[in-house]
């Protein structure tokens, strides 16, 4: 016990932890840390590298972060359960390779894309079954998956080790940008829809005499989203317009965000991640939920593979399985604020985390940093995010001890 009245290190740490925790308490507040990180990085590179905040660079920043973001969104779903999937990048590689081979063989693009997605979901579900029904820790199952799927990717690619992607439909995913007017229309529609939903919800809360947010908080939230969306559209329109890829990924993230926060399935994800025994006793089908989560990683990995194949205009081992893709995706999810301990996180945070990783890489490239510097910076940021996660979890324990 520290002496009374003298601030101890543990006490200060506890106070700090409490702060972090309260910050992350609200649904909106969980964006705080990652948004601050993003703002600091953009401010720093915006000052030191004039090219960083140019519309052209922002456009490429979004494109560069797309594959990492897609995988991070999928990984968030298993992280919510307190599980991990180390095979996400390798699954993306296998799906991309299958897509390339099928297209090379003359299959129409929509069919080939469906086949790649089906393969991704199957691989994910298979690993989920191994975790849930055989009882092997997800770390081990997906480590085996990582190795096995890397081998499978090499097998599918054949001796050349790389296949060029010329299919116009697949390429269009990452080369087409919306005409500026469409971009504005879509951006404004999104902002209005968000405002309408938020206002409608608050009005119904007031009508039913439930807790409602203050008018200031409500307006602030709507203004914040509207400014963010419209600033992004304006910037992108100054270069080539809003990329089709960004629209597709936002739509996918919105759907997954809705599924994870606003459906019975999503509620059981959080419940199982928070306390699996409680979820079981409440009658939730814990096993189904866990297997499904791995299936969702497979789905998002397949989509990430398709996006990657389209963007790099080729499918090669190093672009997926052999490179830093997996670690960047896990890093993005954790930097976004999703807890490695399960039960807390959001897919939108994963997108922001992917932007942090992408911005860091992009900015360091611009400032001529070496690969060594980039690796060390990324490591430091990831460690910082994981430390915040661990400390804010401790915060929860401190309050519990003091409460009863």
């Amino acid at each position, binding site marked *: 016990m520290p002496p009374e009245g003298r601030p101890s290190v543990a006490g200060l740490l506890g106070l700090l932890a409490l702060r972090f925790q309260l910050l992350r308490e609200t649904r909106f507040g969980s964006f705080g840390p990652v948004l601050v990180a993003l703002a600091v990085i953009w401010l720093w590179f915006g000052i030191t590298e004039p090219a960083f905040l140019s519309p052209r660079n922002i456009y490429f920043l979004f494109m560069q972060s797309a594959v990492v973001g897609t995988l991070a969104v999928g990984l968030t779903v298993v992280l919510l359960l307190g599980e991990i999937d180390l095979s996400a990048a390798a699954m993306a590689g296998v799906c991309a390779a299958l897509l390339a081979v099928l297209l090379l063989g003359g299959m129409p693009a929509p069919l080939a894309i469906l086949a790649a997605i089906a393969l991704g979901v199957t691989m994910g579900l298979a690993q989920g079954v191994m975790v849930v029904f055989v009882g092997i820790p997800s770390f081990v199952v997906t480590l085996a998956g990582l190795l096995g799927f890397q081998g499978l990717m090499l097998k599918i690619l054949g001796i050349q080790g790389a296949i060029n992607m010329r299919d116009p439909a697949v390429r269009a995913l990452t080369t087409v940008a919306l005409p500026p007017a469409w971009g504005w229309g879509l951006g404004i529609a999104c902002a209005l829809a968000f405002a309408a939903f938020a206002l409608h919800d608050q009005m119904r809360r007031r009508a039913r005499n439930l807790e409602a947010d203050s008018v200031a908080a409500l307006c602030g939230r709507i203004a914040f989203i509207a400014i963010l969306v419209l600033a992004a559209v304006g910037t992108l329109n100054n270069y080539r317009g809003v990329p089709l890829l960004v629209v597709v990924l936002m739509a996918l993230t919105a759907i997954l965000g809705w599924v994870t926060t606003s459906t019975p399935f999503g509620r059981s994800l959080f419940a199982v991640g928070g306390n699996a025994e409680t979820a079981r*006793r*409440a009658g939730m089908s814990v096993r189904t939920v866990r297997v499904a989560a791995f299936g969702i990683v497979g789905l998002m990995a397949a989509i990430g593979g398709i996006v990657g194949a389209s963007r790099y205009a080729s499918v090669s081992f190093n672009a997926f399985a052999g490179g830093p893709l997996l670690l960047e995706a896990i890093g993005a999810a954790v930097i976004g604020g999703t807890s490695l301990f399960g039960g807390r996180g959001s897919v939108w945070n994963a997108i922001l985390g992917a932007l942090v990783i992408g911005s860091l890489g992009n900015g360091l490239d611009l400032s001529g940093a070496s690969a060594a510097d980039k690796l060390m910076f990324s490591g430091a940021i990831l460690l910082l995010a994981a430390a915040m996660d661990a400390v804010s979890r401790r915060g929860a324990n401190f309050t519990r001890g003091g409460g009863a």
Partner: protein
Amino acid sequence: MPSVSNDEEAGRPDVPPHLLATGVNKRFGGVEALCDVTFGVRRGEVMALVGDNGAGKSTLMKIIAGALRADTGSFAIDAEPVQIASPHDASDLGIRIVYQDLALCENLDVSANVALGAEPVKRGWGFLPHFLRPLDDLAMEETARDAIDRLQVRTLHSVRARVGNLSGGQRQAIAIARAVGADSSVVLLDEPTAALGIAQTRQVLDVVKRLRDTDHAVVYISHNLRDVFEVSDRITVLRQGRNVAVYETAQITPDVIVAAVTRGLEEATADAA
């Protein structure tokens, strides 16, 4: 041998139990947690379940709530045989429980915990499978607010507070609020006052009485014999996983219960003689 029930001597032998569990056996590896236990509770009565730590009270409650499967045992509601193989079965039969360890999700808010496993969904989304329909958050918050208002937990101001940040008493109130929601006929309370102060314990006892007055079948587990004697109509005593006896509360004294809990029936009756 200890008698399974002494209803015959204890009046109201005509009233059949609403919920009846017979011949319940449960082993955990080498530990015989329950051995041929019979347990019944009528509507409109509070049945106290007492016994030392490890007597098997919680195990019996978990089995009735479907959270554990008995090795053998049969169950009946109003003399109709029923299956209790899962928590779903139990809740479909109107059985609600407050677990001794509360069983809350600390990462979710109060309203989500009250609704856990039975989340209401919005109407008009029938084209989606149930697990993908939108949750009715407002209905959940209303239910939680009403349930907590009824328990008069004045310190709990928001149903949107995360349970991980709440005190032991507040958590206990949430666990109780979850169990005493609408359409239940059996409410099992496993040491619901263990973490509570005097005032909150009083409120829980009031809730228990209100449940009895609304014709619920209530099972109340507690080590506090004063509370047990205040609220219960009958008392079932378990000892080392076996039935000792069932008493009419009005016809005995706490000393009888203490003797039965610690030494079993033969010694207790020998004592009294």
